[in-house]
């Protein structure tokens, strides 16, 4: 029997980026808020201090900051004809854990989507006709427009102090920025980061080919910055230990460096760490959440009742908890009916190696940062005419090499032996003069009828609950798109002066062991009616109106950008709707 805790106004499941944003916004309304987190408390000076944060073996190879599969995993299969098997250790994606979530160990590549990404289905249909899209593609509009979301992108950027060069300021194209971006209301809060030699050379190569390169928007800050909450971030030192690592000098935007110092001072907030929410509880109508059940580290079960439940876990686990709690109708790929689990997507990334003459080029690859880099956006979204190409979607192309860590990033030419003196010689000859970017072509993944999430019939977690099952494979459209981007990337490497270019094309079937970003999306998507989505445009559950679901699980399909900028913007957008509309009149914010 669960022990019942005193009632709260709001219970938040998951204390990462979105949990921190929602907690801070709702405590500002005077509400009593608790955030429940399955991982530990973490902070800069105690958990990733400067004296040992740069440990490639511990953090990059042994994955110390990530969720342990023994605590929670997923199962995977390429298609419904296979038996899904458990992911015994993470490979294709790395899932965060603990306070701050993935916001602690991300690279902080801080992108906005394109305006047309939010109205994708109608945009593509209008431009190319309905028959242009593959039959089994299930893309759709988000239910919001650029003008809805832009103020909240701005809010998230100013929270984080994002470094970048504006490309489109209130409709006017700016030199040096991304000319394809949607109109922004303000410049970035801090100027773009400095760029290393390899990044700069890429920009020169791209310019030679007629492109308009621009610095990647970055949550590693070019300058120290004090955000509107009064919290100060430091200046990035280009240490080259960013993604997979915590930042030791407060210069990477994270909940810890932007929100928690303010949130934790509030008397109407508390966090519970090392507690795993096992269920969202509903009343007997099934239309109202009464709170959550969770289990603490000693195994004791608690019930936390609350008026408002905000689901802020990672996308996969948002969907798992909805399915386990009986909220909404599970998706059925045969009939196409049901909303929970559909339109699951990842990211279609490809990259390669550029080997340069070691006597002429020294890139110092270790002098770098998580979101450093120069990019072009000519081939993202619908910035180019897809008519003659036979595919839709795209991505940015960039020299976004984040590090020169010796285990991960050393590369040798393809004909080198895998060991022995020749291998050593090749390692030495190429380490400083190679461009090595795994995700240089950061492509979209659109949604399909047969890519989805469901509960696994066989494999269980430590409480006996079914794991969430991923059914996912690449479709021809994505592979064509990715190969197209990779071709362009290779041309730029040649224009930079590479003596040898080695391309690593993305090939089907989808491989759960090969890292390809942790950008998992969909499964509880937003939309304009309950017939095509789990959530309304404010991320409110159509089925249970006092439940809001944050995060990339709301994406109907994935765009050609890193997702966190949009995750943060949606969280602020939803928080604003809760504060300005829901609290005044609790109930559905959109009537079906």
């Amino acid at each position, binding site marked *: 029997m669960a022990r019942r805790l005193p009632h709260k106004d709001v219970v938040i499941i998951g204390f990462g980026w979105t949990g921190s944003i929602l907690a801070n916004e709702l405590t500002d309304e005077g509400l009593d808020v608790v955030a429940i987190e399955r991982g530990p408390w973490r*902070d*800069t*000076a*105690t958990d990733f*201090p*400067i*004296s*040992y944060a740069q440990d490639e073996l511990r953090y990059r190879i042994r994955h110390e900051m990530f969720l342990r599969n023994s605590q929670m995993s997923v199962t995977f299969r390429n298609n419904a004809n296979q038996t899904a098997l458990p992911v015994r250790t993470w490979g294709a994606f790395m899932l965060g854990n603990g306070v701050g979530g993935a916001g602690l160990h991300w690279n902080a590549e801080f992108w906005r989507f394109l305006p047309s990404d939010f109205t994708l289905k109608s945009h593509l249909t209008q431009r190319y006709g309905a028959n242009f899209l593959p039959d089994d593609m299930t893309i759709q509009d988000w239910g919001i427009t650029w003008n809805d979301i832009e103020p909240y992108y701005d809010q998230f950027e100013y929270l984080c102090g994002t470094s970048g060069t504006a490309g489109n300021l209130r409709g006017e194209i700016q030199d040096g920025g991304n000319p394809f971006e949607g109109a922004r209301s303000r410049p970035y809060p801090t100027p773009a980061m400095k760029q290393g030699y390899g990044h700069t050379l890429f920009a020169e190569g791209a310019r030679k080919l007629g492109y308009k390169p621009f610095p990647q928007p970055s949550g590693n800050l070019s300058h*120290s910055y*004090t955000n509107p*909450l*009064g*919290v*100060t*971030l*430091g*200046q990035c*030192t280009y*240490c080259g230990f960013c993604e997979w690592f915590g930042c*030791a*000098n*407060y210069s990477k935007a994270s909940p810890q460096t932007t929100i928690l*110092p*303010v949130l934790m*001072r509030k*008397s109407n907030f508390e966090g519970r760490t090392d507690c795993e929410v096992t269920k969202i509880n509903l009343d007997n109508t099934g239309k109202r959440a009464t709170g959550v059940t969770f289990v603490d580290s000693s195994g004791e079960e608690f019930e936390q009742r609350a008026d408002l439940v905000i689901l802020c876990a990672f996308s996969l686990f948002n969907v798992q908890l909805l399915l386990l709690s009986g909220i909404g109708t599970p998706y059925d790929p045969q009939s196409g009916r049901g909303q929970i689990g559909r339109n699951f997507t990842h990211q279609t990334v490809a990259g390669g190696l550029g080997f340069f003459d070691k006597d002429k080029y020294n890139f110092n690859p270790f002098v770098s940062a998580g979101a450093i880099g120069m990019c072009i956006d000519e081939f993202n979204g619908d910035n180019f005419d897809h008519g003659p190409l036979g595919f839709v979607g795209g991505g940015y192309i960039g020299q976004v090499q984040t590090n020169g860590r010796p285990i991960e990033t050393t590369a040798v030419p393809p004909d080198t032996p895998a060991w022995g003196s020749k291998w050593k010689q090749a390692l030495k000859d190429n380490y400083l003069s190679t461009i090595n970017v795994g995700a240089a072509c950061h492509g979209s993944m659109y949604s399909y009828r047969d890519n989805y999430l469901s509960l696994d019939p066989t494999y269980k977690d430590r409480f006996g609950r079914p794991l969430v099952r991923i059914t996912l494979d690449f479709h021809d459209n994505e592979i064509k798109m990715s190969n197209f981007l990779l071709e362009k990337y290779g041309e730029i490497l040649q224009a930079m002066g590479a003596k040898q270019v080695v391309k690593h094309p993305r090939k089907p079937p989808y491989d759960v062991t090969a890292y390809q970003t942790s950008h998992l999306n969909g499964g509880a998507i937003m939309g304009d009616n309950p017939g095509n989505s789990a959530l309304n445009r404010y991320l409110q559950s159509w089925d249970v109106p006092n439940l809001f679901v944050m995060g990339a699980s709301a994406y109907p399909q994935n765009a050609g950008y890193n997702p966190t900028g949009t995750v943060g913007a949606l969280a602020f957008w939803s928080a604003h709707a809760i504060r300005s509309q829901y609290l005044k009149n609790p109930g559905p914010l959109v009537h079906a």
Partner: protein
Amino acid sequence: MHEHKSLLATLVRLLLFASAVIVPSGPIMAAGIDKQDFGQIQRGRYLAVVGDCAACHTLPGSGHALAGGRPIETPFGTMFAPNITPDPTTGIGAWTDREFIDAMTKGTGRNGTHLYPAMPYTYYTKVTRDDVLAIRAYLNTLPPVYNPVKADQLPFPFNIRTSMIVWDDLFFSPGQFQPRADKSDEWNRGAYLAEGLGHCGLCHTPKNFMGTDKTSERLQGNALQGWFASNITDDRRRGIGGWSISEIVDYLKAGHGRKTLGTGLMAETIGQSTSHMTDADLKAIAVYLKDQPGQNAGNNEDRTPAVASDQPIMKRGRSVYADECSGCHAGDGKGTEHLFPALDGSAVVQQTDPTSLLHVVLRGTRSVGTDKAPTAAAMPEFGWLLNDNEVAAVLTYIRNSWGNTAPAVSAEDVRKARHAFVERSD
């Protein structure tokens, strides 16, 4: 009756959480405590914050404001602060106003017992009777908490309270603050606060062997409880001589100044006391402190380091600094405002006694977060990584670089500090 009381207590607690209420501390007409005098209660709340009663009388994490029980370290042993809630048996609910005034200003407890000067009555003696009564009026409104506090655990002969009679005769000069006619009202207000309720000297003035202030070295810095309370005279190198009035006010208000962040015991003082004080009172304190002469008041131009940069200890220190410190404090020692303290020109770095530096390097610390500057950045601990020679070298380096000068820190200093810190929980 009970209900009435808890309602009042709730009201007062609500006010406590409201934004700073500015109450002027002028003379009032009432001769004693008037339960209806809301203004007096408000003023008492503010004065209790100025006096930082909670620093000793509230046990952190207990959830009971001013119910006592917090261990207080003194050079003579550990004492436990009493319960000053209005509980009649374990608190001061049964005390008369006279007894309260005597305890605050004369150091005498009920029935003629003598208090130990851990209770800063040597400072509070300067507080006006009206202000003491206002504090009492406020304390009367707190929820009474039943909390018998453990007896003092002082060794002989300090466990004999009557010994304090002798101590008082020798060291205690009672008497209310007397304003100086040759100084401004602001200066006098600052002096009244700093020498009275604010009791700055309790931490910042060096003590003699009997635990009393060395008046000749007033406010020139003092080691206590694993920290060194810095020199707060106008000394340009080690004191606040290089600070403007507004920088001092900002530091006391926000916990962050141009060059330093409040840490250790001062973090608590800022968090609980000065950050809640009015700007006018903080400015008055700053004006007063800036007028306290320090040793280096005039000769601040000599920037010759005490240890030359070509000494081996400095070379080693520079290497340690480059690898472990420069990522935050920067190669030029200038840090980042509101985040990483500047070491260049820092008074904390150049104190004669390096205890605070040893503390933050060996054990790390969190700076204070306030409404105005919430970041509360933390310094990681390096005690696990750096050996005694390396700590000595890096501290000697920062104390003698960029124009800083201060005596070298020895490996023996580090060894002793390491040993002393082992038992500490802060």
